[in-house]
């Protein structure tokens, strides 16, 4: 038993474990379902996984810091609808993106400021702010958003697209670069070090001259920003605006982060792990739908598998081991 316990004791081992599970699931899919590894199916999976990976960047950062962000699906819906609406009204798309990005940064900053400076559970704050944001968007569009995505965004995420010589849309290589940047920021910059320090010991971090309020504002702002990016990308993916487009991402981002080996108490986790978690979730989803399950059964199976995976390598320490 002790040997097995040590096997997944480090974050790195958990990440490798999650990648192995994803690879195994893909192998199982290839054996069970004809055409599972066909170029089109793989491309579709890569695009879906990339979208979830973008939405999960913020959740990863926030969770490492010891928080949680429930406003992600609402911000995704907000960016999705506002971008489509303004672009449909004839705005310059670059200007639209800047505006949406700035608004998202403000929403996220507000989340962090309120949660940290008053010491309120971020669960409640992000939920409340998210509901306000969604309500405002609904009010503005009267519930019927219009508009569409510019061609550039659509081809950027299109499953049939290609990036130069690569047979995948630009989204996939861009995500690889973005992921490398996020990993670099987490591992090699003062910000990353502060994030882990604050997450592992919120009491000691201020003594190391880390300003918790500032860190929370920055990190939640980043989370909302990446959620907004995911919202605009989803606009290109689906073609038209839809306020609830982000809803599946509420629990999926949390699941991806946790399957990737992060601890929701903070201080532990990595974006590479989240990517592994995203791949696992995408594989499970595709596999179950490919096997002919109903959406409701897919959901039930997904819940079961998440619990099973986390019980394999994401267990917490017994209280006697924390003394």
């Amino acid at each position: 038993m002790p040997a097995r316990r040590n096997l997944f004791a480090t974050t790195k081992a958990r990440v490798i474990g999650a990648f192995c599970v994803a690879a195994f699931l893909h192998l199982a899919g290839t054996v069970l379902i004809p055409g599972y590894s066909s170029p089109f199916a793989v491309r579709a999976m890569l695009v879906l996984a990339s979208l979830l990976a973008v939405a999960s960047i913020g959740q990863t950062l926030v969770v490492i810091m010891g928080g949680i962000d429930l406003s992600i699906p609402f911000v995704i819906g907000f960016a999705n609808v506002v971008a489509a609406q303004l672009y449909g009204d004839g705005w310059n798309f670059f200007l639209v993106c800047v505006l949406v990005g700035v608004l998202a940064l403000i929403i996220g900053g507000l989340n962090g400021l309120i949660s940290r400076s008053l010491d309120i559970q971020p669960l409640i704050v992000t939920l409340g702010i998210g509901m306000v944001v969604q309500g405002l968007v609904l009010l503005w569009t009267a519930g019927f958003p219009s508009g569409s995505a510019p061609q550039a965004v659509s081809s950027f995420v299109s499953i049939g697209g290609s990036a130069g010589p690569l047979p995948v849309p630009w989204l996939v290589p861009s995500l690889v670069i973005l992921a490398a940047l996020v990993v670099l920021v987490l591992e090699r910059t003062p910000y990353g070090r502060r994030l882990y320090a604050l997450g592992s010991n919120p009491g000691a971090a201020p003594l190391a001259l880390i300003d918790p309020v500032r860190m929370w504002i920055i990190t939640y702002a980043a989370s909302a920003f990446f959620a907004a990016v995911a919202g605009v990308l989803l606009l290109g993916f689906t073609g038209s605006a839809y306020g609830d487009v982000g809803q599946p991402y509420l629990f999926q981002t949390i699941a991806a982060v946790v399957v990737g080996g992060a601890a929701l108490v903070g201080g532990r986790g990595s974006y590479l792990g989240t990517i592994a978690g995203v791949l696992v979730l995408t594989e499970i989803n595709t596999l179950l739908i490919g096997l002919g399950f109903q959406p409701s059964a897919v959901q039930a199976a997904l819940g079961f598998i998440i619990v099973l995976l986390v019980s394999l390598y994401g267990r917490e320490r017994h209280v006697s081991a924390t003394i």
Partner: protein
Amino acid sequence: MNHISRLMSLARSIGFAVVLLIVLLAINLVLNPARFQPGSWGALIGLAAPLVGAAIASTPVILAGRGGIDISVGPLMGFVNAMLIQVLFLKAGIASPLLLVPAALLIGALVGAANGFLATIARIQPIVATLGTYLILTGVTLTILPAPIGPAPGWLKALAGPWSALPLAAILLAWWLVRRLPYHDQLMAVGSDDRAAYTAGVDVTRVRFIAYVMTGVLGGCAGLMLTALIGSADPNIGPTYTLIAIAAVALGGVSLAGGRGGVAGAVVGAVDIFLLQSVLTTFNVSTFVLQIAYGAILVLAVMLTALQERLAMRGR
């Protein structure tokens, strides 16, 4: 003296929520006296009961601390709803309260035990473990009940009308009895500092496991009250209660970090949210404005609670 100091600490922990309750009640009475006259209290309580029940159900695991939370309470209510009406009443023809009520509690206890096993023995982080059961319960509910169906037995519908106070009173009485037990002290000790409790000889795992089972049983009760209110089976209503119930608990001064607050606070918080919904609907605004006000007041309320606690700390 002891009683007074306990009363004081109670007032401090739920203080702001109680003030909000009184203000909202007064606004409701002025705006809509007909709805709040004694004759319609039964229906009114029945309307609020599922949310109050869900908030009470969410409380024990939150009190148990170390990230304890059960987001599967809402789906559990939906699952109980579907099982009672679709499987037991319509398919098996069981209509007796003597069988249906224990069935609801048993389903709740089993789901609670499963959550407890995952969160305390398998030691999966509670929010992830109950997210798993959330997805499983939602999926299974939609499988056995793809579309809403009715009706519910007559006695069950009466629980949303004239007899609506009965299940709530039973729950509160049961919790009052739990508070008399040494278990309650152990629960609060584990919630405030599990390491200290463990070194003092408290079986932390057992205490937390029982908290999950209690949440499950109470969630079964809430499912019963939901069934009474809608008088039918609907697979989509249950899950919507999860986050609102947790918001109600937080509003009622129960610390999500554990060990502070109690069921009384959760009830006050849930009634606050219910009265708030009631005020907003009387203004007859669009559901969009409703949602904005709702979210904004939720954030404002927890902010004011936090500020008030801060002042109270400084005053001591």
